[in-house]
């Protein structure tokens, strides 16, 4: 006697011949994501109905590595968690140590930190726009953007001496003072940037082809951001103005005049996410200008004792900073020894990727690269 479940299974097999559901695996190297990830898509015709992600291709156990190193040699590893946005990891780590050890930071060094962070935020948003432009094949926009990014990176090089893997922010301040003429060049760059942002908006974002293509793609509702803990520009592009720099200001952001108001008009689709990044770049330029103007009142840079015999008193600290992708948290425990007892980073990309099964379904297969690029996912942060 045939059981009912067998009958149902047979019927399902028969029906599967007539449905148009196929599966597609993309990855592990998807150009729109920083780092390897495997996406498994289920398609109904050309519409995505289901998505799942396989992660862990670059798992390096950096946190364990940091815990096994002496305090003074942890900085290079912190930089290598996500080489692109290493400045925010450095800052979160330094803030956590300062919280435990109660280290004071001079206003000048806090200003330098803000300048450094905002310069990085601008160059990372430009890199984000490059990924989006590549996803839709806007080659000239890519070249324009990379040219502008290089100018910002040159400024960072002038400040830190390197273009990549800075090791510049250390607990208690920064490694060295700004070089002569740096602040003036930052002011010049902010002026140029305002023109460039307008240019990119006209060339790329407000072109009819892109407007039509990106509108309504992969929407994130404000409820969804709360459900999955999505923060940063993705959350603000959904109409929620949550920003750590305003909610719990750090490193002197409380002295700067900026806000995240009037974002209610944002709908949280791909177009708004891309547009909001350009808006935020302008905001960063304004912050830079304010800080540079304040910097002339602050002086006094003192070299730090960041050497082999360094000890951090026992205790635990938690810091959070507004990274380019969202809220980056650092939880640090010290037992007074020569190395950290426990360290953990909570990264913004993790919450974005956990929300993908709700964000992506309903998207056309063709728009998938664009949708993924617009979410700004870094697998290096996730597989740390």
């Amino acid at each position, binding site marked *: 006697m045939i059981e009912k479940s067998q009958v149902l299974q047979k019927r399902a097999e028969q029906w599967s011949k007539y449905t148009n559901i*196929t599966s*597609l695996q*993309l990855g592990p190297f*998807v*150009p*729109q994501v920083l780092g390897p990830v495997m996406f498994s898509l289920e*398609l109904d*015709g*050309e519409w995505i109905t289901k998505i799942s992600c396989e992660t862990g291709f670059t798992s390096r156990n950096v946190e364990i590595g940091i815990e096994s190193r002496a305090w003074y040699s942890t900085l290079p590893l912190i930089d290598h968690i996500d080489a692109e946005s290493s400045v925010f990891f450095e800052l979160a780590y330094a803030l956590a140590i300062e919280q435990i050890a109660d280290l004071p930071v001079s206003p000048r060094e806090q200003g330098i930190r803000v300048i450094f962070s905002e310069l990085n935020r601008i160059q990372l948003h430009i890199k984000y726009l490059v990924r989006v*432009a*590549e*996803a*839709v*094949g*806007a*080659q*000239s*926009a*890519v*070249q*324009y953007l*990379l*040219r502008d990014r*290089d100018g910002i990176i040159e400024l960072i090089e002038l400040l830190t001496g390197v273009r990549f893997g800075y090791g510049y922010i250390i607990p208690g301040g920064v490694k060295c003072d700004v070089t002569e003429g740096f602040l003036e060049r930052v002011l010049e760059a902010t002026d140029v940037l305002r023109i460039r942002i307008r240019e990119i908006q006209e*060339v*790329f974002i407000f*072109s009819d*082809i*892109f407007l*039509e*293509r990106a509108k309504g793609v992969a929407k994130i509702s404000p409820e969804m951001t709360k459900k999955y803990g999505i923060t940063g520009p993705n959350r603000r592009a959904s109409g929620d103005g949550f920003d750590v720099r305003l909610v719990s200001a750090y490193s002197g952001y409380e002295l700067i005049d900026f806000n995240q108001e009037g974002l209610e008009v944002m709908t949280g689709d791909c177009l708004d996410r891309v547009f909001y990044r350009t808006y935020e770049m302008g905001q960063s330029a304004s912050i830079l200008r304010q800080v540079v103007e304040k910097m002339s009142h602050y002086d006094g840079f003192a070299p730090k004792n960041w050497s082999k015999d360094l000890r951090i008193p026992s205790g635990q600290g938690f810091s959070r900073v507004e990274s380019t992708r969202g809220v980056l948290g650092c939880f640090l425990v010290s037992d007074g020894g020569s190395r950290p007892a426990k360290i953990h980073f909570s990264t913004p990309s993790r919450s974005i990727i956990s929300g993908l099964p709700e964000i992506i379904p309903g998207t*056309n*297969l*063709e*728009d*998938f*690269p664009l949708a993924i690029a617009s979410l700004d996912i870094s697998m290096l942060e996730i597989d740390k």
Partner: protein
Amino acid sequence: MKSEALSSIAPGIELFTAQGFSLLVATALAHVFIFGLMLYPFYFWFTALERKVGADVQARVGPTFSGAAGLFQSIADQVKLVIKRKNNFEFPILSIVMLGLLFLQVGTIPFTRELVFIRTEVSPFLFLWFVFLFNFSFWFYGTKSRLVRDEVVLNRWMIQTIAGLMPAGIATFSALVGLTNFDWASILSRQGFYPWQWRIFASPFEFVNFFIFILAGALTTSSCSFSQAFTVVSAQRNSAHLPGVRFFVLANFVTVGVILFLGGSLLPGFILESQWAIENPLLLQLLSWVVLMAKVMTVLSGLFVAERVLPQLSSRQATRFGFHFLLPLSILVYIGALVWRIFD
């Protein structure tokens, strides 16, 4: 009758008209060879230029070991693509056969008035049929063999091809209004009677018609079978083969468009034979090639620059553009050209 018409417009026709099948094929091959020899260095140079400009913007050096003016970079890219691909035997054979057919049909296009190799009833539609056949064969093979797993991708590219080829076909029909025969000889015999010797100035409809034809060509050749329309998907599929093929077919489109609408190898308001009194057929032929290719390369450069400046159309957008804009417009232009012909 036709040969007389040809002889009247082209004095050197007796010398260069092929007789016999083997000679026909040989001359057609030579024709393709010259076409490739004149166009591909331009393509290589354009690709190398693009890479160099991109590198310069990013403060990189760009491709270095690429020969004089970067001319061999594209060849190296193509070789790498072929070598690195894992394939069964069928796909390369199909590619070679279809590409061979596509390349051979170039022999039927009259690049110069002195050089009409195949004196049959060949019309400009042959080229459009070959492009359709090229796409259709890969669509059919991909669907049946499951080599390309997504029917979605295949169907999309087929629909996009049709969305481009239909306006192109109707635009060609409009260009042939008033002719009893649609063959190349009749088209050539009609050249030279318009302002600047360009047919686009014959009527406003012809002017629009040229742009419809060229845009339809760009639309057709941007389908997945010729280039990477699907940014991610094609990176893992067989559809990302040989972007040089795309260039070749687009150059074909532009060449046909130039012969139909821009006077082919004729200089604007200038007749080589009479004004320069050039009697040597070989020299005439060479000069005609140069004039034609200059026109083709100018139009191609415009297309390339426009493509680089604008974001790429998604396949859906492209199909919609073809069916909702180009096709109705081409039908309107066809009716307009007919009415113009009646009252002219």
